[in-house]
């Protein structure tokens, strides 16, 4: 009973114990076990909250027993549960993956600290998802960001350092812009609790301030999400970070920033932004540009991880497009797309890590003959790649279908065309990899290092997830719909 009361904060409190333990015990194997146990614990928390939240009642928790809005409150509704489940599951898989992956990327003595940072990063992300207090959200944003700066800098290549530095500057700039927005919103309402704020927006005399608040929160988050054209920091970060870290970032970090944007735009400012139709157009145009231009960049890229990074940017465009439709259907399609992309991109980044480890290169042009040497790896590449394109039978198709359906329902033919064109380019760049891997080896590519069994295990769980949810998608789709109606009900 006591446990069930504290379920909402447990995912945050667990790593607060686990992270220092992992760092202090000083043995990498212990640190790994701690991290694994903590992340499984977090996942179980979310699973345990599932029936309560799906029952229709959000789970509220007041820190220190102070009533809303005096204290900090936590709130788990369908949307936060959706994100939380996804992040916690990815965290478990990344942790499993990291055991071998990090060991080859990072010096032995630094490993406990790396695991500690991984826990902190996930803690920050979950905190952002669970909290109902906008300043608290900023604090957790900074925790996860700081941890990622450290993790990215662990990359083997020295270019990782500059990538981490640029990420730090951009990230901090984004967070500070967000903070300005928080301040403006506070001056207009006098409160920090999200729900309280949303109510006070309606009656506040300072409407221009509120619009300004949204503008700054939006700008800060756009930097964090890396929406085109503010995406420049992202590709190098994904390329040079240690493989396990790249997985974590690609699958969760930008998505959580997107979640915050969704939460703020629809949950918080929904009523206050009278000019929201301009905003919708902005999101749509931004999304379309991101889809087309970043897909084009991905086509030109020869580095596997770099290509995946650009493809991530293009897929963010899909999600933005869905948000820009300003409807429950569009939003749930966006969330479904987010789910699909997390599975596929997570799997692909894991695969990239295995490839870098065993083939010693991430250049696509040097992958010739992969299919012959390692047919299973190739099969996973095919499945995740096709999910990225949106071929039926994969979860990517489900996401794309819902998005297209929503866009067509609202007569947004431009968006439909852009999605289709971008899928075509996705097919081209995915096929560029597949074809190279499939063709007969000209150079003698050597797979000297075996990746062990933990790395393939986690990669395959995501890959099979792509397939499974491609055939049976009720579960995530219903949750996504539920989440979307939560926000649309409140605005």
């Amino acid at each position: 009973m006591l446990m069930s009361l504290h379920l909402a904060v447990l995912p945050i409190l667990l790593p607060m114990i686990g992270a220092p333990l992992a760092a202090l015990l000083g043995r990498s194997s212990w640190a790994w076990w701690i991290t694994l146990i903590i992340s499984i614990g977090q996942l179980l928390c979310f699973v345990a909250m599932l029936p309560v939240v799906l029952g229709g009642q959000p789970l509220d928790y007041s820190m220190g027993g102070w009533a809303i809005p005096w204290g900090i409150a936590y709130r788990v509704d369908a949307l936060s549960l959706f994100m939380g489940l996804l992040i916690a599951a990815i965290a478990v898989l990344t942790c499993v993956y990291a055991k071998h992956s990090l060991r080859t990327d990072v010096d032995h003595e630094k490993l406990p600290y790396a695991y500690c940072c991984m826990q902190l990063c996930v803690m920050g992300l979950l905190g952002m998802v669970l909290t109902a207090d906008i300043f608290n959200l900023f604090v957790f944003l900074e925790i996860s960001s700081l941890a990622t700066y450290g993790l990215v800098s662990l990359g083997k290549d020295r270019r990782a350092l500059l990538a981490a530095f640029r990420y730090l500057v951009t990230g901090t700039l984004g967070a500070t812009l967000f903070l300005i927005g928080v301040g403006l919103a506070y001056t207009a309402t006098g409160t920090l609790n999200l729900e309280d704020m949303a109510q006070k927006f309606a009656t506040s005399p300072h409407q221009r301030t509120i619009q300004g608040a949204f503008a700054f929160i939006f700008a800060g988050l756009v930097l964090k999400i890396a929406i085109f054209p503010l995406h420049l920091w992202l590709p190098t970060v994904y390329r040079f970070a240690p493989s396990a870290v790249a997985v974590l970032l690609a699958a969760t970090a930008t998505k959580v920033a997107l979640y915050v944007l969704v939460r703020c735009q629809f949950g918080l400012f929904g009523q206050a932004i009278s000019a929201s139709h301009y905003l919708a157009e902005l999101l749509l145009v931004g999304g379309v540009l991101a889809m087309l231009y970043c897909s084009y960049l991905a086509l030109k890229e020869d580095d596997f991880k770099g290509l995946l990074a650009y493809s991530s940017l293009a897929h963010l465009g899909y999600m933005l497009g869905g948000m820009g439709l300003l409807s429950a259907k569009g939003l749930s399609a966006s969330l479904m797309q987010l789910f699909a992309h997390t599975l596929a991109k997570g799997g692909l980044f894991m695969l990239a890590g295995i490839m870098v480890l065993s083939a010693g290169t991430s250049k696509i042009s040097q992958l010739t003959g992969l299919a012959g040497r390692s047919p299973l790896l190739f099969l996973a590449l095919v499945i995740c790649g096709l999910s990225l394109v949106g071929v039926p039978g994969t979860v990517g198709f489900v996401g794309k279908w819902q998005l297209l359906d929503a866009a067509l329902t609202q007569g947004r033919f431009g968006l439909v065309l852009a999605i289709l064109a971008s899928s075509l380019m996705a097919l081209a760049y995915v096929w560029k990899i597949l074809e190279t891997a499939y063709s007969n080896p000209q150079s003698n590519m050597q797979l000297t290092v075996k990746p062990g069994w933990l790395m393939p295990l986690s990669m395959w769980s995501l890959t099979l997830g792509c397939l499974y949810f491609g055939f049976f998608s009720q579960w995530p789709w219903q949750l996504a719909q539920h989440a979307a109606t939560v926000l649309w009900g409140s605005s």
Partner: protein
Amino acid sequence: MIDVVLNIVLLLFLLTMAVSILFIRHLMAMAMLFGLYSLLTAALFLVLDAPDVAFTEAAVGTGISTVLMLATLAITGIHKEKRPKIHLPALLLCTLVGGLLVVISLDLPPLGDEQSPALQGVAKHYLEKGKEETGVPNVVTAVLASYRGFDTLGEVAVIFTGGVCVLMLLGHWRQKPSVKVKNKIRITSR
């Protein structure tokens, strides 16, 4: 009235400092100016009735931050910046964002305004009930430690994270020859 004058004077100083920091090319001098800048900020906080923030800024901003910057300079040993060029897009962006902010600021309640919603909201409760509910006369402390204690826990987590990151980056790790790394990979492949 003296508040207002002091306030304006300090702000003008602050602006001068910021401009000098931007344009001075000697990095050591920049670090010094940076320390002064922080100190001025702390003074400004004091003028604006925020002693707790002023203390923290003086200790953390002026103290630790400047020391860290000097230490970085000492390690890198680079004391002179290359001649910078004028960055036109950045200038344009700054004008744009700045203009936007000025427009927004006109809608803001003026400094010290009694009617500002910020004073009516949660803050009112803290001032009126804070002592009664927490027993601490310093409302800032009361809010920090009690009402928003969880933020403070998060703050501790931030410091911890920063510490771990710095340790990872700068700790005296044994430098390993690349051969050993290969050995390690072999062990894992078994």
